């Protein structure tokens, strides 16, 4: 019951907190404090609203069920989204694989085969990663590509990272992500409201026109009350200001399990904030996730083989002198990982343990089933014996 009433309770709690703040504000204004100052003081005195709500929700109980349901919703959303993508892809490739590289910077050599939009200077994805958890430095855009990845196309890069949202003088942490302009076109997502980021949003010209940002549906509901007028409103993140151009669909929860970005900004925003020290130019910025679609008619194995073949050249051309001395980088390779379920760092860390646990649970279930079956069998045999005895005594009909 607690669980089913949760939605209503959430609304009531919001109103209760709002009422508290209004009353506190009113009390202060009656004492002669200016309205704005009173509002600020009331909020200051109240403390962290979200934290209060969070702790109050814990008091309701049934939290694990709500979280489980939330998690299930995310998973279902993933599945739905993946199914959609899979269907979209099928006529082109026939292969159910996404491509995902992790860890390294590799420059745009790998995406040289990517057809660029007319008028676009080509600021599409330029980073791919290998499968190591090591850091390396590759200078972007140094020389023309010697060999390009032939098996994949439509890459995009996305970098998860916590951000600080500033709103009415109050700063609070949010989950954010930087994405290349190709991200949403590649994912083929439809916006919940407005539009999603495009190639043009990640171009240098966007800096003069105002950087675009997209927000998640939950963020939209929480901060803007689901108001369609959110489009065109400014949002201040990490000290920089962007303009909200759209709301992401509820089905999109990012590409990393357990990390759902509330705000997604184009990489150019990072350039606007940090200039030359932006991750776009810095070699020590890693942990970009790159995803791509397989080219039509190319199988996963073919694309993998292609990447492995060009990996040496790509790394050699991309690594700076310092990193070329490091064996594991110089002799590195690139590999493909199916990305249909996104990236799951925890799954990678605890994958073996979870599989072991699952196997043990499976074995336990088999033992239980075998025990139950033998118990049932012995009961049946006993019953059969009971039936045989009256039948032999000529009482079978009466027994029935």
């Amino acid at each position, binding site marked *: 019951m607690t669980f089913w009433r949760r939605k209503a309770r959430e609304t009531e709690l919001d109103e209760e907190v709002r009422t508290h703040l209004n009353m506190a504000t009113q009390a202060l204004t009656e004492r002669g404090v200016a309205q704005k100052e009173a509002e600020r003081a009331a909020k200051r005195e109240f*403390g962290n609203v979200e934290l209060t709500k969070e702790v109050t929700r814990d008091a309701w109980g049934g939290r694990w069920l709500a979280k489980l349901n939330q998690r299930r919703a995310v998973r279902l959303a993933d599945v739905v989204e993946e199914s959609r993508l899979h269907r979209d892809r099928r006529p082109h490739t026939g292969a159910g694989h996404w491509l995902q590289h992790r860890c390294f910077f590799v420059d745009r050599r790998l995406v040289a085969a990517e057809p660029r939009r007319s008028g676009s200077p080509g600021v599409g994805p330029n980073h791919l990663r290998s499968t190591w958890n090591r850091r390396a430095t590759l200078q972007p855009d140094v020389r023309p590509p010697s060999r390009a990845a032939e098996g994949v196309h439509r890459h995009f890069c996305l970098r998860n990272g916590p951000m600080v949202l500033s709103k009415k003088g109050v700063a609070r942490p949010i989950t954010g992500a930087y994405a290349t302009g190709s991200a949403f076109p590649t994912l083929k997502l439809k916006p919940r409201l407005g539009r999603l980021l495009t190639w043009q949003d990640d171009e240098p010209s966007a800096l003069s026109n105002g950087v675009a940002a997209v927000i998640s549906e939950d963020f939209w509901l929480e901060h803007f009350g689901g108001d369609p007028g959110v489009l065109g409103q400014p949002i201040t993140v990490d000290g920089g200001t962007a303009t909200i151009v759209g709301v992401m669909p509820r089905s999109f929860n990012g590409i990393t399990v357990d990390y759902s970005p509330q705000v997604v900004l184009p990489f150019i925003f990072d350039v606007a904030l940090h200039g030359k020290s932006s991750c776009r130019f810095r070699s020590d910025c890693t942990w970009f996730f790159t995803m791509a679609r397989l080219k039509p008619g190319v199988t996963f194995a073919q694309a993998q083989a292609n990447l492995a073949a060009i990996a040496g050249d790509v790394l050699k051309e991309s690594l700076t002198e310092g990193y070329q001395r490091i064996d594991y980088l110089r002799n590195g390779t690139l590999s493909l990982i199916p990305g249909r379920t996104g990236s799951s760092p925890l799954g990678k860390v605890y994958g073996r343990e979870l599989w072991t646990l699952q196997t043990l649970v499976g074995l336990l279930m088999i033992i239980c089933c075998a025990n139950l079956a033998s118990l049932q069998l012995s009961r049946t045999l006993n019953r059969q014996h009971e039936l045989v005895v009256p039948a032999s005594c000529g009482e079978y009909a009466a027994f029935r």
Partner: protein
Amino acid sequence: MAEKKERYQNRIELLQGTLDLLVLQTLQWGPQHGYGISIAIRNHSGEILQVHTGSLYPALHRLEKQKLIKAEWKVSENKQRAKYYQLTAAGKKHLSRERSKWSQFSQAIAGVLNPEQT
């Protein structure tokens, strides 16, 4: 600044469990909303006890779940819709028990602190 720091240092943290007692006691005087409860506790303690909203609202909802208090939406004297809490019969019994326990506890502490008076 120094005054603020001193005020912070002098702030009396509520003992674990006493918040429920204070809330129930406040509601014995009549139905009240969250803001009213915090103000009442502050005023009746001579501005010494300041209940953090981060503790107050979870406590109110916890007590409501335990059916020690019940809530009802009403319009306040300032024409605002507010959630008013009031004691239930179970809450009154609980308050009585808790008051008795607190009395014993405070006497015990006083006995330790002032052994010559006992």
